[in-house]
């Protein structure tokens, strides 16, 4: 209460340097810029690349969960669609011109699928919304699994290769890492601007009080549709990048556990309280998965239990926990 007045006009003006140092984005940027030079992690280029891809995915997902409050429990669908779209476009249409167009197609097709689903379920509530997203993902999963002629069925898509791009040799894992890094940096800037925008704040208003929002002129269904479209674009983008990381596409990207993982990673880090919660959560999630699974085959058990404990004790995630202090 006492700091009411001084805090009033803090908005405009660019923040001075020390304030920039407090910005988590700066540190994430720095760490992942230097990642390939780390003596230990340097050998894990594909893990680093996968982390960056996950960041894009969880940030896009958090627009739905954290900002719009939509229980989108089938978000893996748009990631998977992005993977397959990129693979198919590469194999059948634009093989010569490299991976740029296939990756862009992955993002656009991801947005398209998300838009269609988002439009259908835009006015569904709570559990019905969640179930429909899960069902949608399962349907896509089975289509990819069974439609051998197009998706390759069980054996997936093969023959996807990274060639050179702008004269850079993308077969080199470090160079590909930096390509993904650049995409991540751009995607994070865009998603953050959207989150802080008038539109992003409208989403939060609708999440907090949909009825009042309607009485202030907000067409709540339209917003849900639009956020799905935007989120689907970046989810598709991350899926497409993943296609070129693994140089393949398997139905496993559409498995429901993928959709579960992104929810867990986002909640774990505190996506509902902080823009960067999903990134923190993803780092913990992916690294612990790599580490624990390497020495204990029933690692899922440990991981499941720890998740239950964390969500029960700290429903706002790790960043929510830190923020309270």
């Amino acid at each position: 209460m006492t700091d009411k007045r001084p805090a009033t006009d803090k908005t405009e003006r660019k923040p001075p340097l020390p304030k920039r140092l407090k910005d988590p984005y700066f540190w994430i940027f720095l760490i992942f810029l230097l990642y390939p030079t780390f003596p230990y992690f340097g050998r894990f280029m594909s893990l680093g690349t996968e982390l960056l891809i996950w960041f894009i995915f969880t940030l896009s997902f958090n627009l739905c969960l954290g900002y719009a409050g939509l229980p989108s429990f089938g978000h893996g669908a748009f990631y998977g669609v992005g993977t397959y779209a990129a693979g198919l476009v590469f194999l059948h249409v634009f093989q010569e011109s490299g991976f740029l167009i296939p990756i862009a197609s992955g993002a656009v097709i991801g947005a398209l699928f998300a838009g269609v689903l988002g439009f259908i379920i835009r006015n569904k509530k709570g559990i019905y919304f969640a179930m429909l997203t899960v069902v949608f993902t399962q349907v896509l999963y089975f289509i990819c699994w069974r439609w051998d002629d197009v998706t390759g069925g069980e054996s997936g898509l093969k023959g996807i290769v990274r060639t050179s791009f702008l004269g850079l040799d993308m077969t080199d894992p470090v160079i590909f890492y930096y390509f993904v890094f650049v995409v991540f940096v751009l995607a994070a800037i865009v998603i953050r601007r959207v989150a802080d925008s008038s539109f992003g704040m409208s989403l939060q208003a609708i999440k907090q009080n949909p009825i009042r929002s309607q009485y202030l002129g907000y067409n709540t269904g339209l917003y849900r549709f639009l956020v799905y479209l935007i989120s689907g674009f970046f989810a598709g983008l991350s899926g497409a990048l993943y296609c070129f990381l693994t140089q393949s596409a398997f139905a496993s990207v559409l498995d429901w556990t993928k959709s579960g993982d992104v929810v867990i990673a986002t909640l774990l880090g505190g996506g509902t309280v902080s823009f960067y919660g999903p990134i923190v959560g993803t780092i913990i999630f992916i690294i612990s998965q790599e580490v624990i699974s390497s020495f204990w085959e029933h690692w899922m058990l440990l991981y499941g239990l720890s998740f239950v404990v964390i969500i029960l004790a700290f429903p706002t995630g790790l960043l929510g926990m830190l923020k309270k202090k």
Partner: protein
Amino acid sequence: MPLFSIQNLTKRFGSFVAVNNVDLEIPETGILSIIGPNGAGKTTLFNLLTGFFLPDAGRVIFKGQDITGQPPYEIIKHGISRSFQITSLFQEMTVLDNVRIGIQSHLGDKFKLFLNFQENRRVKQEALNILDRVKLVDNRMSLVTAISHGDRKILDLALALTTDPSVLLLDEPMSGLSIQERGKITRLICDDFAKNMKLIIVEHDMDVVFSISDEILVLNQGRVLVRGAPAEISRNQAVQEAYLGGEKCLAEIK
């Protein structure tokens, strides 16, 4: 032409008829108060007029235009706004941000993907003007959860103002308030709202209702019991029986 022309309006919840075949014409000016015992259909009538409920039968005509069945975000475009009996705010935001949400919608900035919410000066200025108007500007940086119930009621009114309405429906603006807070809101209604827009008020505080209204409408069991000037209503025997069980004479209160 009447402002609202309500024809055969009916709303049922299961077997309970909340609003029963109501025909009503509401004139363009003055303060109209709607009173009646609990369950008389007052709030349901508001919800029907503002598109929150779809009526089971009947029509709502506003300035000659049929607005029946339009959702709230269309209704407000006609200049109709409302407040809520149980304050309906954005709980995790500051007072200023609450009002900004309303203003950015009214000024057409709500869809802008890359316009920073906090840096939108035009919206901020308009929001401060509204807060100044309702005397809540000193609390602008407080979270909604940190302000008093009275201030929340005022913020609820401020949100209703952000759509720049020509008709304002107030649903029990005095409920749960202290005498001082009631005075504040009464002044706001009389000195500001009544001069700038048509007011339709549902209220249980009879002192306020009888002192500020130009016209009073009594609802009972989903029907219009009687309608008239405050003096007529306070003398009406049927009203006294329906509203106060005949125990207390409204004329005495007045």
